[in-house]
């Protein structure tokens, strides 16, 4: 071993895990994804063509490559996360392929496979090249700046594109890209970095007002600025889903850092007030709330910007029932955006409640594993980042699936790993790479004595409570 992280182990060799669990799960993941791909093709009366074998080969190659990269660079990383993400990605590919086969036919699955390969390669690169993720916390404001630039990109002339009323896309020439997806990651890094450094100041240097303690304005300032930038841009982009996600991420990370539930409640009250204002101020927000509450009004269903999409999704879910129609046997194509925003409804229709619950469980386990990394990480930055990213994924799932299931109003958000679209895939695989790194660092055997500083990279100084917490895993 020649890299610096493992230099500790060269002195006193520690047995590295063989990652057998990961190999087994990974094979299962590829089998599930490719099996679904094959079945959906057969369900649509297709023969097993070259596309199927290419898909199987690419997914298998990517899985093996990722496994090797993890063995070499992050052998102590969580063994469940990569196969879980791979399963979801494979299922998404299968459904996109299945919907491609609906006449007149599209060819998004190949594009998605290409993006999958690119995303996983970038994820591997993150694991390979980021020697120590903790260095990222040094560039706090770079991440804020990066987030702002990403969010503003769609407004730039020539490259900014407006699709379905939301200006959240940039045209890269080879295809459109949603920079907001990646901004989710950079914002999380900024929050984690800022909060891990200023946590104590925020918590202790405030003043008490009745039962509530408020931090000083200057300590919260950068956060508020970050939040305002995100919200402001999103209001102008008319992307309600991302606004909810970013705000949720913001609130979750403040709570994770401070454990102050009262601030969250205050924040929610503020959102409630903002929501009431938004409903009265912006007709499109009001229309969306109205379409949610009165979704089954015949007038509402056929109204422009009415509830047609969500109601069609519910019809699809209902027709799927407990066991579903089987892949390729339903009519998920009757729902608008069946392969992206509404892909969960497509799965619910063809795989039934059983299949949908299984997919939700996979997401739940994935989120749980990521948050568990937050528990085991030894530094505040890693803790906040992992737990925050886990929360972000959970919030995104709740917003998109809750919207499809009519628990909350439908907003346009992608289902992580499944929905057609490269930006979402890329951002989520980048998150996987990052949390795997944090996980490796957290699980790596820690040597007692002066060696702590070698891996701590100065992180310990800002967070006095660290050594104690390192014990709980």
């Amino acid at each position: 071993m020649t890299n610096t992280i493992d230099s500790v182990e060269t002195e006193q060799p520690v047995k590295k895990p063989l990652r057998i669990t990961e190999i087994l799960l990974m094979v299962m993941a590829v089998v599930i994804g490719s099996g679904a791909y094959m079945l959906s093709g057969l369900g649509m009366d297709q023969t097993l063509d070259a596309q199927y074998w290419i898909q199987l080969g690419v997914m298998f190659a990517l899985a093996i490559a990722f496994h090797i990269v993890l063995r070499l660079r992050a052998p102590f990383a969580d063994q469940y996360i990569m196969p879980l993400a791979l399963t979801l990605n494979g299922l998404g590919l299968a459904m996109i392929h299945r919907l491609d086969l609906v006449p007149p036919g599209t060819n998004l699955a190949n594009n998605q496979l290409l993006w999958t390969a690119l995303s996983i390669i970038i994820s591997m690169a993150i694991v390979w090249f980021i020697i120590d993720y903790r260095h990222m916390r040094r560039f706090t404001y770079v991440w804020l700046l990066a987030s702002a630039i990403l969010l503003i990109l769609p407004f730039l002339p020539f490259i900014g594109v407006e699709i379905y009323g939301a200006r959240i896309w940039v045209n890269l020439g080879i295809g459109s890209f949603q920079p907001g997806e990646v901004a989710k990651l950079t914002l999380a890094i900024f929050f984690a970095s800022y909060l891990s450094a200023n946590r104590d100041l925020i918590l202790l240097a405030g003043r008490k007002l009745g039962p509530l303690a408020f931090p000083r304005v200057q300590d919260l300032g950068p956060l508020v600025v970050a939040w305002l930038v995100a919200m402001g841009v999103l209001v102008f982009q008319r992307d309600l889903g991302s606004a909810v996600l970013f705000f949720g991420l913001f609130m979750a990370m403040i709570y994770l850092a401070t454990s102050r539930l009262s601030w969250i409640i205050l924040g929610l009250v503020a959102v409630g007030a903002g929501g009431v204002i938004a409903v009265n101020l912006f007709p499109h927000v009001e229309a969306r709330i109205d379409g949610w509450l009165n979704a089954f009004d015949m007038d509402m269903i056929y109204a422009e910007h009415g509830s047609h999409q969500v109601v069609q999704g519910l019809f699809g879910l209902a027709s799927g029932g407990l066991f579903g129609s089987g892949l390729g046997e339903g009519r998920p194509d009757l729902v608008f955006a069946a392969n992206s925003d509404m892909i969960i409804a497509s799965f619910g229709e063809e795989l039934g409640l059983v299949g949908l619950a299984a997919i939700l469980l996979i997401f739940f386990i994935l989120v749980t594993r990521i948050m568990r990394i937050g528990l085991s990480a030894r530094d505040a930055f890693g803790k906040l980042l992992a737990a925050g990213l886990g929360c972000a994924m959970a919030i995104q799932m709740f917003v998109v699936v809750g919207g499809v299931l009519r628990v909350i109003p439908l907003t346009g958000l992608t289902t992580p790993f499944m929905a057609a679209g490269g930006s979402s895939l890329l951002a989520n695989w980048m998150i996987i790479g990052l949390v795997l790194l944090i996980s490796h660092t957290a699980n790596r055997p820690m040597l007692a004595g002066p060696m702590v500083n070698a891996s701590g990279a100065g992180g310990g100084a800002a967070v006095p409570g660290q050594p104690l917490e390192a014990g709980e895993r």
Partner: protein
Amino acid sequence: MNESIRYAWYAVVAAFLVLIGAASYIQVVAADDLRTHEANSRELYKQFGGPRGPILVGGEPIVESVPSDSSSFDYQRVYHDPELYSGITGFYSLAYGQTGLEQRLNGWLSGTADDLFIERIRQTFTGADNPGASVELTIDPEAQRVAYSALPEGMKASVVVSEPATGRILAMASRPNYDTNLLAVHSTTQASENMEKITGKGVSPYQNPPTYNIPQPGSTFKLIDAIAMLESGEYSPTGQVSVPNELPLPQTNNTISNFRGGICDRRGSAELSWIFAQSCNTPFSQAAMDLGQDAIRDVAERFGFNDSSITIPLSVNASHFPTEEIPQATLAQSVLGQVDVRASALQMNMVAAGIANDGTVMHPQMVDTVRGPDLNVLEEPQPEVYSEAITPEIADQMTEMMLEVVQSGTAMPARSSIPIAAKTGTADIGTTGKVNSWITGFAPADDPQVAVTLVYEETDYSVGSQLTAKNLKKIVEAVVEQ
């Protein structure tokens, strides 16, 4: 920080529980309500893409579902000879729903009828597609072809041919018609383009003219008048009736005259039989005013007027004779098949068929047999009496008078080696100068095999009157077995 991560995780657990709860509610608890919601087109898509029983005429399908290349729909509905049958089959369209027999027989054709329950259970286990039942019609393909050929292109016309003793419809065709296949296409955008083309030509694909259109029946309504007159006992076919050239209408300045002067005006009085054959107007108006509205209405209703419940199984638009009291002047005009009196081609055919069948009107019927997928007979409608409208004696007298119409009266072009009994009619349509030209009759008069009714709507008198008797003869000679 670990505490807050744990609490956040609890929130995540709660969120996922909410999602799984919502999914369970939608996919299990509320699933049935959602499936049957009126905005849910999935069942229609499912049915539309599925196999569906054929409609047969003379053992050959006029409508059938054939396997389709499209991968979203397994089958395509195909209509053969649509110009002959579009009116009765109606269409089966994803975009526009179902009409005609496709609608009325949907339970059988789609296999959802209760009698097909066992069949459905069997298919659940064998995994076979539900092919639906096949329906054989009473239509005789030859009669249908001949009857249709009596309707010149460009005209608005209907023809009905039936068997008086059973009520079975042997032919029912109309113009204008359309290509049913245009509406059965899978693509809804294509269907709506085609629909615009069809309606652009002035065709309504939703209606079957012989049962839906109710033009004024003109002098064919004198069949009803004559029956009422004979039933009163004050008239007989050979009895003398006065034939005024003009009949003043009470409480108005209007008069009724005989049709375009003609032969009626040359006689001061004549036998009822002659008056009927020449279709003089004034004697019938006078008689109606003497007998009263109720006497006429009563006869009309015995033949099916004012009955909106007739289905064959196509629904039949009710023919109309006023039930509310009308002034004598209006009555005098109405009994000539004008003003508010309306009749479908099928209705007038029921009148002729009732007279042919010794006064017994049989319920018209188009379905011969319904067979399940394994060819077992599921339903075979039996002839059914609609009403004992008139006595055999009066029916005989009417037959004699109707024979006279062909022998020496207004339907002389229908004279044939087969004794044909008939009555013509011409109804003026307001002041448009256009008329509805009618003929209804039956043959052979001594042993009726067919009742035939033709109507050419909104045409010129010179055109319509040329077509009626000639085509009646043509159809009778083609259909009656000698």
